[in-house]
């Protein structure tokens, strides 16, 4: 008779994911059984997200209590697989809010897909499940599982449109390169395990406080592979080459969501591994991350200058933003990074919501010519896009400025002055290509007629613009929240 100790079950730690998974299954089953109107499925997914967000509030309260009273052990659940620290709960909350915004932004695509719309909704919910497991995992294998659940859902979403060829190409590229990156990540995990004998992030940190590793080659190679794998997922240079093609080919209704999700989860996982598991090795990984960061900022902002397609432009700007966010990790603190990721995700989803309105929610091209005179065709849409682009550029009084200030000052304080100077340079360059779109929208004449903006898109844009401006003028509440998001 074998004795097997089963892990203690702590439902509260995984309730948001459970609700999301059941919601996704529910959407699919309701669709095949009753074939209801798309609006009903939207209501189910909205209820799912609201319940899941409610549970993150419960988790936040419990994590805060544990921090005050001192019962931090209780926050590690399922035999060390899942943690419920403030970092995980904050990440979950942001992911859930972005999932809601993403669904709204892609609603026209869902309606156009008709019967397949249910699949799009379910995939959005499942991707959110996976990424939310990823940010809450304390075990590297669990993190990989979450990464795969999320990534595979995104591969399918990238091809889910009625305009076949382009989306198929994007989905295939994303799938092949993405699986390759996942394989590199898990190989890195295996090597890290070979070097330390631990898979749990907290146990790895414990290992480095107890032992001095004299020949850390295996561990460093493993860490390098993990950085490559996650660097791919967040499209940091030099692992960014898939991003423009995928952003261009995938249906624009979901691109903002896809990009935002992968970036949030990727950066949070990277911060958890680097800052929680192996802070002792920072002599080795800090220069690497700083290099990737500088390269991403320069490559992203210079190549974006010559793009003629708005989606490719946003993709390269995303590469530059990956570099900016990495300066936060170089700074060694998570507050600035969490703030940056949150406000950038909102801007990204908002910007692609505009693309979905102007160029259609499927995989049609989105040349910058289509945006000429947009401010005349629809003043509100043009203004919203302008605010979002200026927010991405980091104009003062928008959230982008506060976010950049936060991560740059952290990097500066940590002794990476040269990186901050590169980052400021890249920010200046990036103004040029954001302004190019804005100039095209406001200065050029157009013969085209006015644009009708759907109600869902109007909601997304209102929230995104309000978030960008509010977090720029009154950033304190969000910064405090990010600062409270402690990591175990």
């Amino acid at each position, binding site marked *: *008779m*074998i004795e*097997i100790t*089963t*892990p203690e079950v702590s439902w509260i730690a995984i309730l948001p994911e459970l609700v999301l998974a059941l919601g996704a299954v529910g959407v699919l089953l309701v669709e*095949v059984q009753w074939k209801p109107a798309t609006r009903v499925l939207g209501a189910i997914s909205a209820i799912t997200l609201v319940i899941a967000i409610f549970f993150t509030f419960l988790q936040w309260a419990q994590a805060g209590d544990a921090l005050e009273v001192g019962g931090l052990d209780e926050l590690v659940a399922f035999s060390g697989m899942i943690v419920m620290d403030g970092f995980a709960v904050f990440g979950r909350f942001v992911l859930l809010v972005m999932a809601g915004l993403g669904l709204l932004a892609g609603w026209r695509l869902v309606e156009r897909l*008709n*019967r397949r719309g249910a699949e799009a909704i379910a995939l959005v919910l499942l991707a959110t499940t996976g990424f939310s497991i990823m940010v809450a995992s304390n075990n590297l294998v669990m993190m990989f599982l979450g990464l795969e659940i999320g990534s595979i859902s995104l591969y399918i979403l990238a091809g889910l449109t009625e305009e076949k060829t382009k989306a198929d190409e994007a989905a295939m590229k994303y799938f092949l390169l993405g699986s390759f990156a996942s394989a590199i990540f898990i190989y890195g995990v295996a090597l890290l395990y070979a070097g330390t004998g631990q898979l749990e992030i907290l146990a790895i940190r414990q290992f480095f406080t107890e032992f001095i590793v004299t020949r850390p080659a295996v561990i460093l190679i493993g860490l390098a592979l993990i950085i490559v794998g996650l660097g791919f997922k967040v499209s940091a240079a030099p692992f960014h080459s898939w991003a423009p093609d995928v952003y261009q080919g995938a249906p624009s209704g979901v691109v903002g969501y896809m990009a935002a999700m992968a970036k949030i989860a990727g950066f949070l996982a990277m911060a958890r591994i680097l800052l929680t598991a192996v802070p002792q090795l920072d002599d080795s990984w800090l220069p690497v991350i700083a290099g990737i960061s500088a390269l991403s900022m320069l490559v992203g902002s210079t190549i974006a200058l010559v793009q003629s397609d708005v989606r490719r432009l946003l993709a390269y700007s995303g590469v530059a933003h990956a570099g900016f966010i990495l300066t936060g990790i170089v700074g060694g603190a998570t507050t600035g990074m969490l703030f940056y990721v949150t406000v950038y995700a909102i801007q990204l989803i908002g910007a692609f919501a505009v693309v979905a309105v102007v160029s259609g929610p499927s995989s049609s091209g989105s040349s910058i010519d289509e945006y000429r005179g947009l401010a005349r065709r629809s003043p509100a849409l043009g203004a919203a896009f302008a605010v979002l682009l200026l927010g991405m550029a980091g104009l003062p009084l928008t959230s982008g400025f506060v976010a950049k200030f936060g991560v740059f000052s952290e990097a500066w304080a940590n002794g990476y002055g040269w990186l901050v100077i590169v980052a400021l340079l890249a920010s200046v360059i990036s103004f040029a290509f954001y302004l190019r779109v804005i100039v095209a929208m406001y200065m050029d004449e157009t013969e085209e007629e006015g644009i009708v903006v759907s109600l869902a898109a109007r909601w997304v844009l209102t929230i995104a613009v309000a978030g960008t401006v509010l977090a720029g003028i009154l950033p304190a509440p969000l910064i405090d929240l990010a600062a409270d998001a402690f990591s175990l």
Partner: protein
Amino acid sequence: MTLADYLPIGLMLLLAGLFVFVSLVMSKMVSPDRPTPEKLDPYECGIVPEVEAIQRFPVKFYLVAMLFVIFDVEIIFLFAWASIWTALGWYGVAAMLIFTFFVMETLMYVWKRGALDWNVKRRARYVSQETSEAA
């Protein structure tokens, strides 16, 4: 285990390589080589082959393969659980039930969507209904 303990394995590896090398190269060198078209056929006796061995076949066989993989994986998990289910207790039962629920849910979904219909015409009807609604 020291490195010396691996010596027999190393010797075995060497012998295996040598055996392959010797038998292939020696037979090539020693044997007479007078080819005729009949001798170069895949089968020297029997009827003359008329078509390529690798052919295209209906995509529905892939469907069967996919279904087989899905249920095969489920059986693998069930088997592992069933062989030590007393040790796993209610935790194992609950975990298996959750797992089976998601497999069955998937089965129900593809069934309802007509993916299991062997008859292509019936499946086509489902697809056309889908597109006509879209139009």
